[in-house]
């Protein structure tokens, strides 16, 4: 595909989208050239996803013009945008849980012969695509069996399965580890070399500097800056996004007195055949859990919390052996668990922000079984403002929030529960830099006050930035543990890969 570089491939002028109560996009201009990776960045709720939705024909803009390759682009629905050659990886997963990986991959265009599904061809091409994104699952696996990062990779592979002229990726890497991100970037570069235009949205600043050609910053639905990535500094970028300076990327970690043992897990097996896992958290400690996609971190945390029944092992809370057969037991013993999949396992989408926040601490906002709405709302307001939730108020339904703000609401639920031990799985998934800092600060403050925090994250800098020690998972077992003084990204990665190599590399 050859394109004239001077005229932009996509040109957006004055795009405006109003939801009742909110102006999500306010006269935004944006132009993207063929062969360019254009970064779109902004705080949670800035309007990035809304812009994507307008482009993809899901939302109809209230004003503004979009031009694609010189022709007006006014898609009547998702089908129209696809026909125009736009492929989108949406921020929220849109998969078919009961169908197989292959069927999900080819949902847009199934390989067919005479109206019949060409199952052999489908499987073959699925393997190719999965290889391209570095996902080692069988094409026949039902998607509901996969972890969230694997699902995310499927979404990416789906978009890659069809030739397109414009590829839009809305936070594709929020749950990915560096390995998958690197593979993805290779693919993106291959596409741009072929003249495909790419819009890339992410809250990971280091990614932006690595892959972006130009960038556009949105704030409160308005464009505040467009320009080349090269030459920008992190500080400038943050200031444009957040509107204020952020001194450091991570809050300072101060030495904390480590107290009694809060949680001790011994020889936990998530399934009968799985390797045993042992770990512990002390009061005042922030323990990181690192590992590659599918390395078993989430499975282990779920088993500890009682979300799934483990096949064996014992759990001690504050030195006493306890039986955790149901999340209720865990909560009673002072354990919280923020799940990685906010939509499927976290949010009650049709209920209000306040109701979502109070869900795990409903006893605190009720008396004799009666809800005290005033107390509930006050608590919700307090936490929302601490986490900078962008919403019209505690009554707004969670469904209408942006992805990052939804994430803040689930996090707020567990902060409201105020338990001794907090297990958070991908806590800053989709959260902007400003709020990320606040959340990190909050986790550290919790540790300061004598609580224990177990952070599962695919964002290695995050773990290195806030943890006291990091436990590294590899292929279902703990490959090693590193304490803060010895922190080193290389070492963590080596440990994470160790289980997947024939001769485990020692750290």
């Amino acid at each position, binding site marked *: 595909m050859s394109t004239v570089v001077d005229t932009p491939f996509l040109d957006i002028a004055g795009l405006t989208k109003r939801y*009742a*109560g909110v102006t999500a996009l306010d006269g935004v201009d944006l132009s993207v050239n063929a062969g360019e990776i254009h970064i779109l960045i902004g705080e949670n709720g800035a309007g990035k996803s809304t812009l994507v939705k307008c482009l993809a024909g899901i939302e109809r803009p209230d004003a503004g013009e979009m031009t694609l390759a010189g022709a007006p682009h006014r898609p009547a629905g998702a089908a129209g945008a696809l026909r125009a050659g736009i492929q989108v990886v949406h921020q929220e997963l849109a998969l078919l849980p009961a169908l197989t990986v292959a069927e999900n991959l080819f949902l847009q265009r199934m390989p067919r012969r005479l109206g019949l599904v060409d199952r052999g061809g489908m499987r073959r091409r699925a393997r190719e695509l999965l290889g391209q994104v570095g996902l080692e699952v069988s094409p026949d696996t039902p998607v509901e069996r996969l972890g969230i990062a694997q699902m995310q990779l499927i979404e990416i592979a789906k978009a890659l399965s069809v030739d397109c002229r414009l590829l839009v990726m809305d936070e594709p890497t929020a749950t990915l580890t560096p390995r998958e991100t690197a593979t993805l970037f290779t693919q993106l570069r291959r596409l741009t070399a072929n003249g495909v235009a790419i819009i890339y949205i992410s809250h990971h600043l280091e990614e932006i500097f690595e892959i972006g050609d130009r960038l556009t910053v949105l704030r409160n639905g308005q464009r505040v800056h467009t320009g080349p990535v090269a030459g920008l500094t992190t500080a400038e970028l943050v200031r444009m996004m957040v509107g204020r300076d952020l001194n450091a990327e991570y809050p300072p970690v101060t030495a904390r007195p480590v107290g009694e043992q809060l949680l001790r897990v011994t020889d936990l097996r998530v399934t009968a055949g799985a390797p045993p896992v042992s770990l512990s958290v002390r009061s005042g400690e922030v323990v990181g859990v690192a590992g590659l996609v599918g390395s078993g971190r989430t499975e282990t945390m779920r088993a500890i*919390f009682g*979300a799934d029944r483990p096949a064996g092992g014992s759990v001690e809370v504050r030195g006493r052996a306890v039986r955790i057969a149901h*999340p209720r037991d865990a909560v009673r013993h002072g354990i919280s668990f923020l799940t990685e999949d906010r939509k499927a396992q976290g949010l009650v989408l049709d209920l209000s922000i306040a*109701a979502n926040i109070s*869900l795990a601490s409903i006893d605190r906002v009720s008396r004799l*079984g009666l809800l005290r709405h005033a107390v509930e709302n006050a608590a919700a307001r307090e936490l929302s403002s601490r986490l900078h939730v962008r919403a019209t108020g505690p009554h707004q339904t969670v469904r209408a929030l942006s992805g990052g703000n939804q994430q803040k609401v689930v996090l707020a639920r567990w902060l409201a529960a105020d338990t001794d031990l907090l297990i958070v799985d991908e806590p800053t998934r989709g959260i902007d830099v400003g709020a990320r800092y606040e959340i990190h600060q909050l986790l550290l403050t919790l540790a300061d006050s004598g609580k224990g925090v177990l952070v599962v994250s695919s964002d290695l800098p995050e773990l290195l930035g806030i943890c006291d020690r990091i436990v590294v998972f590899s292929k279902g077992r703990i490959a090693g543990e590193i304490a803060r003084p010895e922190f080193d990204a290389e070492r963590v990665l080596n440990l994470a890969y160790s289980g997947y190599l024939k001769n485990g590399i020692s750290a």
Partner: protein
Amino acid sequence: MISISVARGNPRTSRAVSQVLGEAGIGVALVALALFFLAFAPHFGTAQNVRDILTQITLNTILAVGMTFVILVGGIDLSVGSVIALCAVVAGTAMKGGGSASIPAAVLLSLLIGAATGLVNGFVTERWRVPSFIVTLGMLYVARGAAEQYTGAATIYSLPAALTGFGTTTLVGLPAVFAVALLMAAVAWFVLSRTVFGRLVYATGNNEEAVRLSGHRTGVIKVVCFVIGGACVGVAAIIYMARLGVASPILGQGYELNAIAAVVIGGASLSGGRGSVIGTLLGACLLGVLTNGLLLMGVSDFQRTIVTGAVIIVAVVLDAYRKRLSIRLSATS
């Protein structure tokens, strides 16, 4: 969903407004229907007829209020028509020929049987994670057979005069039986909108996994909803006997569909998490007014059947239109 533009003014009142509008959704269709009948159905607006309507919708209202709980947690109860028969014949037999002293025990019996069938429905559904549709379909047969077996097909009569008297009493112009239904609806409304349990019912219906992972026993919540539904059937059985003075093992056939229809017309989602008692009440009224008005208009049986179906469809379609309209209005304002 609705009129969020008002939200700029005062989010709290706007929320109340949008809630009432949302719940009263089908209320617009109801008012339209009532106006139509006022114009074209002789006697429709008379006090006597209003009382009749209220008496006629009492049973369905009680059943539908109970069904609201079940549907809110994503379940369905097909057994209500049979269970009401079982409750009625057992409680009726207990009261038969007795004086008013025999009533409390019979009422208790009816409630217990209703609640027990609800418990079985809920427990089996929850414990083995099987669809409540099938479990309650099974119960539909079991309860019907049990009712028939219990009485050997005989109609039970000679119920205490105090009971049948209650069936015709009016309180400040309202039929006493309807007052019972209204009271139950009020309690249900309170429970669902003001208590922790009610909150958890909505939340469970919306996203059970999220509620479970927040440390709540969603299984218990769901079973309790089935039990509440069953207990309401027990009350309905007593009301049936109070109104009609008899109990027979074949009574109640098809009641389940009417009850479910009232709940769904009232805006509930069969996949759970959405719905309200006020909506249910309006749904039951709509169905009752429709039957009553068509009868008064003297429409022939067959045409009445056709029109009933058509109006049900048109009512929900109108409601859907109204919802869209109010969204558009609020978005452009």
